[in-house]
């Protein structure tokens, strides 16, 4: 019950804030804030409830479940379930929801009601994606979250918003249709084998199929998730969409929507197709490592603040892909950690970019310079999150990347050493970002007011979480191994036990 509440609160809150805008222009944002606030409290309560369960080594993995008939003709049910990993991601979604409402507080003046409707519905779709364990329902939410996101970019975006929003939608939707075909193929393979027509995740696990069928079906899923994750040849929508979206849109895109891609790899691709994922893993890991390096190098070449941050996402999420396909407890823990930490630190960098753009009306770093003397608080925050993005020990990203590399080393030492090069590259782009923007003389004569208390509170809470993730990552790591219950991971865990 509580799981469907997590989705419906956001849907209802969105409608409410749309209507609220009619009787008072400021009402929309308060309603939206209240909605995401309730959502966050609820998810944290859930986490606290289940924390003890997750600390046990041999728990079943699933913390809550809701099920109702939906379309019996196809064996489709409204089936939601939550395990540790979806819990952590839902908490992240709710937290970034609060952040994105806070950072749109003054930025969005026109048609605020419709804006918050779209924002909250995107979040609802994402929560649905993280909770759905019926493949039809999953696809339903997967497509559903794109539409409000499209409107957010197309209506409230920056100069080139038409191009970016249409590109984003076509990439996501087109790849999604390949996944739909794959889902159907999987369902019918299962139907022919067992005579049961069902879209249920648990029943489709361990479907027997021939290796080539398995590979083809897996590739359909992989394409959809690779576009979202993003994995390198499919990433070209990302810099445009992130750059043109309004601040809240960029935060949600980077923090939540990209996570749905790596979540899909983790939840569906590997468990449903263990064999195929096994022999596809070298390719996927090579693509991941390419992404890590390619994203970092391209980030260095950017002059647009948001575009630079967008490319760092490609680089960081390459680590998550590496961790998932290396598939051992360390690398998986690292991948989950990386997903969470990237959501917070990149989200914060986009908030900073939004604040700068709101005051200076530009994102071009060549026109910034010497902002430290003008806005010391903002500059300090910028430095903090840039360092966190480059993976300084003590911050969340470091834990994630370190664990991924450690796990990856067991799978492929070559790829691990290639990916480790990214540490150097990321130092270069992160420090270049800080130097170009904040250091030097204020030659352009900027006169700007520093962070308001609302902005300060937003960024400080994000900084605190980054530090917490870096210094005491255990709660997140407890949630991660849940996923390792499926066959290949059992083998890996077994190996590890022998080694000790």
């Amino acid at each position, binding site marked *: 019950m509580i799981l469907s509440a997590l989705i419906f609160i956001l849907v209802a809150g969105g409608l409410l804030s749309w209507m609220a805008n009619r009787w008072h222009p400021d009402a929309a944002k308060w309603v939206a804030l209240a909605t995401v606030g309730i959502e966050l409290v609820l998810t944290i309560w859930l986490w606290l409830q289940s924390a003890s369960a997750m600390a046990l080594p041999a728990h079943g993995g699933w913390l809550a479940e809701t099920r109702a008939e*939906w*379309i*019996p*003709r*196809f064996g489709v049910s409204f089936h939601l379930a939550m395990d540790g990993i979806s819990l952590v991601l839902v908490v992240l979604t709710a937290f970034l929801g609060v952040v994105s409402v806070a950072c749109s507080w003054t930025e969005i003046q026109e*048609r605020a009601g419709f804006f918050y409707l779209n924002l909250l519905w995107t979040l609802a779709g994402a929560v649905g994606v993280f909770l759905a364990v019926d493949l*039809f329902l999953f*696809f*339903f*939410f997967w*497509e*559903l979250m*794109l*539409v409000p996101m*499209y*409107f957010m970019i*197309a*209506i409230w975006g920056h100069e080139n918003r*038409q191009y970016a*929003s*249409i590109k984003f*939608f*076509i990439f996501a*939707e*087109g790849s999604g*249709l*390949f996944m*739909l*075909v794959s889902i*159907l*193929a999987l369902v*019918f393979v299962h139907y022919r084998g067992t005579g049961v027509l069902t879209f249920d995740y648990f029943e489709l696990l361990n479907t027997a199929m021939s290796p080539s069928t398995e590979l083809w079906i897996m590739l359909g899923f992989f394409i959809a998730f690779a576009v979202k994750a993003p994995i390198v040849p499919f990433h070209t929508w990302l810099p445009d969409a992130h750059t043109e979206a309004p601040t809240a849109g960029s935060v949600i895109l980077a923090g939540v929507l990209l996570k749905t891609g790596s979540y899909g790899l983790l939840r569906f691709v590997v468990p449903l197709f263990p064999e195929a994922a096994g022999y596809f893993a070298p390719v996927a890991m090579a693509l991941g490592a390419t992404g890590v390096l390619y994203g970092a190098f391209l980030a260095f070449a950017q002059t647009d603040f948001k575009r630079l941050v967008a490319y760092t996402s490609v680089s960081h999420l390459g680590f998550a892909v590496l961790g998932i396909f290396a598939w051992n407890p360390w690398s998986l823990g690292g991948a989950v950690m990386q997903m969470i930490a990237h959501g917070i630190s990149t989200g914060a960098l986009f908030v900073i970019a939004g604040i700068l753009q709101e005051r200076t009306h530009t994102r071009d770093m060549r026109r910034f310079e010497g902002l430290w003397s003008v806005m010391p608080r903002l500059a300090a925050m910028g430095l903090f999150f840039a360092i966190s993005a480059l993976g300084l020990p003590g911050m969340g990203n470091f834990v994630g990347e370190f664990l991924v590399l450690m796990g990856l080393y067991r799978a492929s030492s070559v790829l691990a050493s290639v990916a480790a090069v990214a540490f150097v590259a990321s130092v270069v782009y992160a420090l270049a970002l800080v130097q170009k923007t904040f250091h030097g003389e204020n030659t352009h004569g900027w006169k700007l007011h520093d962070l308001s208390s609302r902005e300060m509170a937003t960024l400080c809470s994000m900084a605190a979480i980054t530090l917490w993730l870096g210094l005491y990552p255990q709660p997140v790591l407890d949630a991660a191994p849940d996923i390792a219950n499926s066959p290949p991971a059992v083998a890996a865990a077994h190996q590890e036990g022998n080694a000790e």
Partner: protein
Amino acid sequence: MNPLPSALHSDSLHSDLVALSPLILLAGSAVVVMLAAAFYRHPRPVMMLTLAGLVLSFASLFLSQGIGSRQVTALLVLDHYALFFIGLIVAATFVVAVLCYRYFGGSESRHEALYILLLLAALGGGVLVASSHFASFLLGLELLSISLFALIAYPRFTERPLEAGIKYLILAGFSSGLLLFGMAVVYAQLGTMQFAKIGTMLTAPDQALELYGLAGLALIVTGVGFKLALVPFHMWTPDVYEGAPAPITAFIATVSKGAMLALLLRYFLMAGAHQSQPITLALSLVAVTTILVGNLLALLQDNIKRILAYSSIAQLGYLLVGFLAFDPLAIEAVAYFLTAYFVTMLGAFGVVTVLSGGFNNGSEGESHRVAERDSDRLADYASLFWHRPWLAGVFTAMLLSLAGIPLTMGFIGKFYILTAGVEASLWIPVIALVVGSTIGLFYYLRIIAVMCAPSSQAITEPTMRPVASPSLGESVTLAALTLLLIWLGVFPAQLIDVLEGTVVDLT
């Protein structure tokens, strides 16, 4: 024998009449409306009578359904499949009739004949979906087409509708000729014109379609292909859609195409045409090209009606993918997709109708200036979201449904079609469908993007014209269509239950 047979006979006559009641009521209301219009020339009572006739005919479907599947003479079969599609046609005609009233000048103008034609066209469609014999097939088709020429060219003092009417006339005549020839050739080989008999003859051990029969089937498929605007035969569609008055365009896009497709599916299944390898191969080729060409050509258009025309070509291509699976699931898929397509197209052209000034029957002189064209240029829709939010919302919902986005019927329809295609392992058409709908997103999004452009640009736009405000009937209709679109998109189970019942008779 005893009096028993005669009692049986009158009994069966009675149930024949009950089974036929939806069609009889349609024909009857056409006559009543004609008489009413002859004695009392006012559009309002005439429209009311038309609507009442349609409602009665729809209600009698339930009566007729109680009898179950029934063959009435050799010509017509009133099974659940036919009844479902008659219901769909009657409902669509109802919507079109409501949309026509203000568009053609309301109570100010004399457009009573329009409703007679609409009823006759609906009757033609009803006969088509119920026919099980070449004779009734042709009868229904001609009834539908001939009413349509007149409907398309109804604003007869304006250039575009007239041009569209003549184009349609020539092409429809041509395709009917092909059809007739095809039927004659099939008859020459097999000596029967009943679908079911053709089917049983072909399943007999040493019988197969020879060259004659095959050529006949190919000609029939070509003739139907013209009506359905499948790709090598699609040239007329955009011109006719653009020229015809918007509500009539909605009628062509839905009733005319839907009835033809329902008939084609029945013919294929009853007459066993799907066992002919070359024909199914050709049809899958047609499906692939229809999807790709329809979507690609839509990218080049700047006119909403033309975009919708190409979009409807592509949608028919999607339908063919489901069609090609030829099993119970395929029939369900086609029926669901067609229902979704009806709702969506009626909604989309409904919005175009509401935004257009319409025709005031130019004979009345200066006071009723004839609109040169409908509001169908992309510029007419600029920033519609901000000055007519509800209308833009309805249009967006319809476009998203055409694109197959969740929460709408279009999504479930596309899902159904893909399911049927994947189940029958039709990989190439399925991939074409995926690629086609990805391309299609671009032009749907383009319209949506124009509608949500900031309003400051729109005011300086010189092409902005004063737009008519929708009548109550139109608003209610559009709202109902949108609600239906979303309701059946989220909870499709009820409609699926109905469809499962319709399939039983055909297989």
